[in-house]
């Protein structure tokens, strides 16, 4: 069964890395929309297999309804209604009385039931309702869910509810990659490449080095990360499978090797190399490992990112005297300059819909995360004085949020901002500086 193959892979990961997992991450909304959609998530009913030890139904390893509620609230687009305002606690469609939810001022309602099948396996039904229209907008059934995938299924339920209520796909069932830097004294520095769920749960270490780790980039199927290490005292590009943890060096040519970016089909890797004398953009065929030089210019060309259709790349070049964003067809033709404002625009990447770019801009003294509308060329700063030295912005796969690194009160932190600038979050880690975040593409649905 396909499901079980997936489940066993997941088990392998957990057993490999549980020893190295560290601090949990807390995500705090620092700025939300004035009013989100009020949502009531009723605790799911648990029934089924009796636990011989307790005589009751085996308790769940994870609180599904709580995870769904937290996801929706964390997006900043929903306000979770506390359960003490609930007049009833329905689990099945026939138990829903819409009047109760209008009184509780809920616009969205989530109910569900979980059956314990024994052997740490569950079946889950979840339903979402539009209270005003008195209508079920989403209903999903998940069969034979192993206990260790309950969180994943909970995030998927949140994704379905989010999509039904906002019209845009959710991005809760995703992961984030990031690098944590832990210093003990001036000389001792440990760098950890880590991956955690999008809600910060279950961080695990993929790679540790006494040297910097930068530029993690997810493969489009979310199974591999390409990143840059200095473990040989030179920059090199490594690809690592996030499940098996197998790693291989894919670029260690003369000069610098950096800025890996997977093509949308996962077959090619754009990267920066100075093997021909100075930094230019190359594309590597990941099957044959053949390489093609895309830019040939004496200036610095780096930080390539693919257009969603895979036909072109944006990249940073200082050929005008300052770093700016350029676009080029993937065959190296059709060069076009995209940014003209200010003296520093770098590390651009496309929104999933291809209509805008997010980048690092320096309109004045400070560096900002900025979004540029490709149709109008208009640039808008999304970050202000609350953080400084912003870096490495990346879109959530649904395009709603942008994750980035910044300095705040002398600590390296991760933060997120909605593409419209209205919602801001900070990801709190227990110790160490955190940098180089990358939001994973959506994984396989259950």
């Amino acid at each position, binding site marked *: 069964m396909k499901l079980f193959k997936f489940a066993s892979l997941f088990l392998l990961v957990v057993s490999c890395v549980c020893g190295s997992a560290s601090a949990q991450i807390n995500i705090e909304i620092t700025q939300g929309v004035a009013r989100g959609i009020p949502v009531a998530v009723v605790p799911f009913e648990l029934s089924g297999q009796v636990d011989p030890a307790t005589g009751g139904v085996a308790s769940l390893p994870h609180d599904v309804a709580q995870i769904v509620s937290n996801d929706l609230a964390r997006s900043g687009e929903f306000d979770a209604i506390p359960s003490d305002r609930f007049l009833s606690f329905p689990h099945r469609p026939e138990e829903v009385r819409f009047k109760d939810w209008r009184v509780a001022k809920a616009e969205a309602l989530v109910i569900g039931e979980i059956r314990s099948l024994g052997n740490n396996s569950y079946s889950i039904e979840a339903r979402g309702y539009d209270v005003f229209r008195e209508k079920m907008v989403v209903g999903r059934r998940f069969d034979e869910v192993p206990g260790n995938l309950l969180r994943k299924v909970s995030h998927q339920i949140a994704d379905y509810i989010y999509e039904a209520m906002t019209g845009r796909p959710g991005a809760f069932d995703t992961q984030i990659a990031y690098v944590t830097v832990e210093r003990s004294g001036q000389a001792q520095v440990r760098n950890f490449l880590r991956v955690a769920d999008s809600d910060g749960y279950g961080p695990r270490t993929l790679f540790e080095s006494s040297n*910097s780790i*930068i*530029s993690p980039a997810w493969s489009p199927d979310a199974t591999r990360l390409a990143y*840059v290490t*200095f473990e040989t005292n030179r*920059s090199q590009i490594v690809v690592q499978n996030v499940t098996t943890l197998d790693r291989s060096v894919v670029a260690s040519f003369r000069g*610098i090797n950096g800025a890996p970016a997977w093509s949308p089909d996962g077959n090619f890797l754009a990267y920066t190399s100075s093997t021909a004398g100075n*930094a230019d953009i190359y594309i590597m065929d990941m099957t044959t490992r053949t390489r093609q030089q895309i830019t040939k210019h004496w200036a610095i060309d780096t930080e390539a990112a693919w257009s969603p259709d895979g036909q072109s790349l944006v990249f940073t070049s200082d050929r005008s005297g300052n*770093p700016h964003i350029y676009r080029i067809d993937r065959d190296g033709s059709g060069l076009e300059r995209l940014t003209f404002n200010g003296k520093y625009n770098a590390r651009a990447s496309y929104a999933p819909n291809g209509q805008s770019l997010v980048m690092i801009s320096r309109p004045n003294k400070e560096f900002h995360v900025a979004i540029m509308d490709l149709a109008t060329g208009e640039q808008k700063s999304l970050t202000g004085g609350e953080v400084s030295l912003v870096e490495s912005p990346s879109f959530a796969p649904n395009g709603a949020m942008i994750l980035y690194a910044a300095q705040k009160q002398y600590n390296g932190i991760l933060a997120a901002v909605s593409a419209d600038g209205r919602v801001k979050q900070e990801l709190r880690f227990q110790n160490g500086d955190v940098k180089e975040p990358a939001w994973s593409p959506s994984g396989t649905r259950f």
Partner: protein
Amino acid sequence: MNNKLSTALLLAMALTLTACGNKEVVAEAPPAAAPVAVDNNAFGSGYSVSDLESMGIMGDPVNYRTVYFAYDSSEIAERSRVIVEAHARALGSQSGVEVTLEGHCDERGTREYNLALGERRSQGVARLMSAVGAGNNPVQNVSYGEERPVALEHNDSAWSQNRRVEILY
């Protein structure tokens, strides 16, 4: 000109002081008190000692192994040129010495752009070295971008220390 005069004065004073501290020397006729000729090519640098000092170089420039850069620049300033040329001359008389030029940046701007900028800085130093004639010594350019700062603070002073090329051999 002023610099040269003051150097001469300083040297004369130094000689006098030395003389005072050592009676035996005084007993012998002091060397011709004629103004000491200013060496305009101290340590082969093409500059006088005081000119070097005004650039912040005390003594032989070859004792300095780090050269610094302006923000987002790989231009080699006068002080840096003097130091790099001193190393080139020192290396010119040797062969088979492996030279590594490590380029670094401050933390501002993106990491990958800085990785490329650090390399451009080290390449600039390498070009100057070979122009002066660093002999047949193999030169390695390495860039660490902003990944290996020497100063960890987030201010102008730290940033100016971190924008550098280290000359290692």
